[in-house]
C-alpha cells in the first residue's frame, strides 16, 4: 500500500509489527464507533418498528434489565480487582493464606462471605487473585463460594423461604462444600496450561493511578463484553421458552432436580434474586429448588461467558461442566440430610 501523504494517525496505526496483528486490514476503531452510532441513530425508526413485536419487546426489556442490574456489581468487582492488583502486595496473600493449598482452599471458601455482591463481581476479583500469585485452587474456590454464601444472598434466601428456614443452612453448606470440592479437585487434576496466562501486560513501571484506571478500563471492557453475550442468552430463554415445559418435569423426582439445575444455568439470574424465583417454583420439591440455588451462582450462561473471557475458553469448558455435576450431586445429598 502506497501512502504518499504523511498521515500521522494512520501511520501510527500501521507502524506496529504485522505478526502481532491478526485482525487484517483494520478500520480505525474510533471512526468505526462513530459511524456505527450515527448509523444506529439514523436507522432508529425502522429498527424500532422491527422491535415492536411483543416477543422482541420482552426480549429487549429482559436484556436491558440484566445489563442494568449486573453493571453496578461488575463495576464493584472491577474496582476491588483493580485495588487488589495495584494496592495489595503479593506478599499479603502469601501471609494471609495457609501455605499448603489443601488448607488454603477452605479458608478462601469461607472468605467468600466478605464479598457482598453477585457473581458478576466475583469473576474479576478471582482473576486478580490469580494474577497476584494466589494458588488457582484457592482463587477458584473463592470464585464459586463468594456469590452463594455472602450475607445479602443468605438473607434474601431466608426472606424468600419464610416457612423453610433450613433452606438457608442447606444452601450455605451445599455451596461451601461444592466450592471447596472444586478447589481440591483443581489442585489434584487441574493443569496450569488450562488457565490462560494473564493476557494483560503487568502494571509495574507505571504510576499507581495509571495502573488502577488501566485495570478498571480493561476489566469493564473485557468482562462487560462477555456479560452482554450472557445477557442476550438469558433474555432469549426468558422470552422464547414457555414455562409449561417445567410443570411436566416437576412430577418425577430425578427429572425435577435436573430440570431446575439446567434452568438455573439458562436463566442466569443474579444470586441475590434467585431465591425468590426458586420460592415461586412451588410445584418442585425443596431438594430440586436447592439444586437451583446451588447451581445458579456457580454455573450459568453469563458466568460461563465471563469465565471464558477471563480465564480462557479451554478452562471454562472443563470447569463449568465439572462444577455443574458436583453441584447437583452435593445438592441432592444435602437435601437428603437437611431438608
Amino acid at each position, binding site marked *: 500500500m502506497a501512502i504518499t501523504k504523511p498521515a500521522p494517525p494512520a501511520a*501510527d496505526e500501521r507502524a*506496529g*509489527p504485522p505478526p502481532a496483528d491478526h485482525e487484517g486490514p483494520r478500520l*480505525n*476503531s*474510533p471512526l468505526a*464507533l462513530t459511524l*456505527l*452510532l450515527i448509523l*444506529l*441513530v439514523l436507522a*432508529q425508526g425502522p*429498527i*424500532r418498528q422491527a*422491535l415492536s413485536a*411483543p416477543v422482541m*419487546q*420482552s426480549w*429487549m*426489556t429482559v*436484556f*436491558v*434489565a440484566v*445489563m*442494568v*442490574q449486573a*453493571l453496578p*456489581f461488575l*463495576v*464493584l468487582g472491577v474496582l476491588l480487582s483493580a485495588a487488589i492488583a495495584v494496592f495489595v502486595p503479593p506478599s499479603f496473600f502469601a501471609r494471609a493464606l495457609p501455605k499448603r493449598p489443601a488448607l488454603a482452599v477452605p479458608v478462601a471458601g469461607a472468605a467468600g462471605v466478605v464479598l457482598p455482591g453477585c457473581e458478576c463481581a466475583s469473576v474479576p476479583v478471582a482473576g486478580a487473585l490469580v494474577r497476584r500469585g494466589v494458588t488457582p485452587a484457592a482463587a477458584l474456590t473463592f470464585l464459586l463460594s463468594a456469590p452463594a454464601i455472602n450475607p445479602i444472598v443468605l438473607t*434474601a434466601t431466608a426472606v*424468600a423461604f419464610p416457612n423453610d428456614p433450613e433452606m438457608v443452612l442447606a444452601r450455605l453448606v451445599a455451596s461451601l462444600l461444592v466450592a471447596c470440592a472444586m478447589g481440591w479437585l483443581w489442585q489434584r487434576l487441574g493443569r496450569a496450561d488450562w488457565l490462560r496466562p494473564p493476557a*494483560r*501486560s503487568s502494571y509495574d513501571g507505571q504510576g499507581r493511578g495509571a495502573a488502577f*484506571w*488501566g485495570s478498571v*478500563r480493561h476489566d*469493564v*471492557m*473485557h468482562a*462487560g*463484553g462477555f456479560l*452482554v*453475550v450472557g*445477557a442476550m442468552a438469558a433474555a432469549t430463554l*426468558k*422470552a422464547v421458552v*414457555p414455562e*409449561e415445559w*417445567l*410443570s411436566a418435569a416437576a412430577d418425577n423426582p430425578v427429572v425435577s432436580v435436573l430440570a431446575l439445575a439446567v434452568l438455573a444455568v439458562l*436463566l442466569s*439470574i*443474579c444470586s441475590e*434474586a434467585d431465591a425468590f*424465583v426458586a420460592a415461586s*417454583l*412451588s*410445584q418442585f420439591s425443596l431438594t430440586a429448588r436447592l439444586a437451583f440455588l446451588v447451581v445458579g451462582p456457580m454455573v450459568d450462561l453469563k458466568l460461563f461467558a465471563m469465565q471464558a*473471557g477471563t480465564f480462557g475458553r479451554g478452562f471454562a469448558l472443563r470447569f463449568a461442566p465439572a462444577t455443574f455435576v458436583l453441584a447437583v450431586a452435593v445438592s441432592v445429598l444435602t437435601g437428603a440430610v437437611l431438608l
Partner: protein
Amino acid sequence: MSRQAQAAVLFLLGASLLHAGFTDLYLRYVKVGLRPMLLASGVVLIAAALATVWYEWRARKAAPRHAEDGHGHREPRVSWLLVLPLFALILVAPPALGSYSALRTGTALQQPYGYADLPPEGALRLSLVDYAGRAVYDHGRTLKGRQIKVAGFVALDKAGTPYLVRMALNCCAADAQPVKVGLTGRIPPVLQPDTWLEVTGTYTARQAEDPVNNGPIPFLQVSAAAPVRAPQDPYDETWNN
C-alpha cells in the same frame, strides 16, 4: 478497539446509567433500591473514561510514536458488544414487562405473613397483590361486603378471559413474576392488553388455576372500570422488604 474508542464506550455507558438513574427509566428494569449503586457505577465509568483519555494523552506526549504499541494488548472484539445495551437503553428504552410475559409465566402469589387492618368503612383501595393474597389465603374474610378498588394492567388469555395483572419484582425484570386476578361481572366491552385500569368491584369466592403453574388465581366481581395512568414504578416491590 483502541483506547480512544474504549474511552468513548465507557463514557457513553456511564452517561446512560446516569440518565436511567436520574429519570424514572431505571424503574422499568430494576428495583428502586439499586438506584444509588446505579448512579455510583455511572460516575465510576465516566471517571474511567476520563482517566483513559488523560493517561493516553500523557503517554502520547511522552512517546508520540510508540504510545499504542508499547502496551501491545488490545481488547478483544467482544468489547464491541457493549454498544448494544447502550443503543437499547438510549434509543429504544424498551417498556416494562407487560401482558406477553405475564401470560407466559405462572402466577407468583405467595401466602402473606399477615394482614394489615383495613379502614372500617368506605371503598377499599388495595394493591392487586394484597387483594389476591387476602382473597386466596384469607378466604376473603376481610373483604366480604366491601367495595374494592384495584389497579393493574390488562392481559387476555387465549380463551379471552380478562385478567388484571401486576408484575412483582425482586431484583430486576429478569426475575419479575406476575400476580393475576381474574375479572368477572360487568367487564368493559373492549379491553386492550397492557392498558392500566382501576377496577371497582366486590370479592367473589370464585377461583381458577393458572394453566402455567397451577397457582391460584382469585377473581373480582367487577362493577366499574376506568383507565388510569401507569404507576411511577410499574412493578410491585412489596416482597422486597
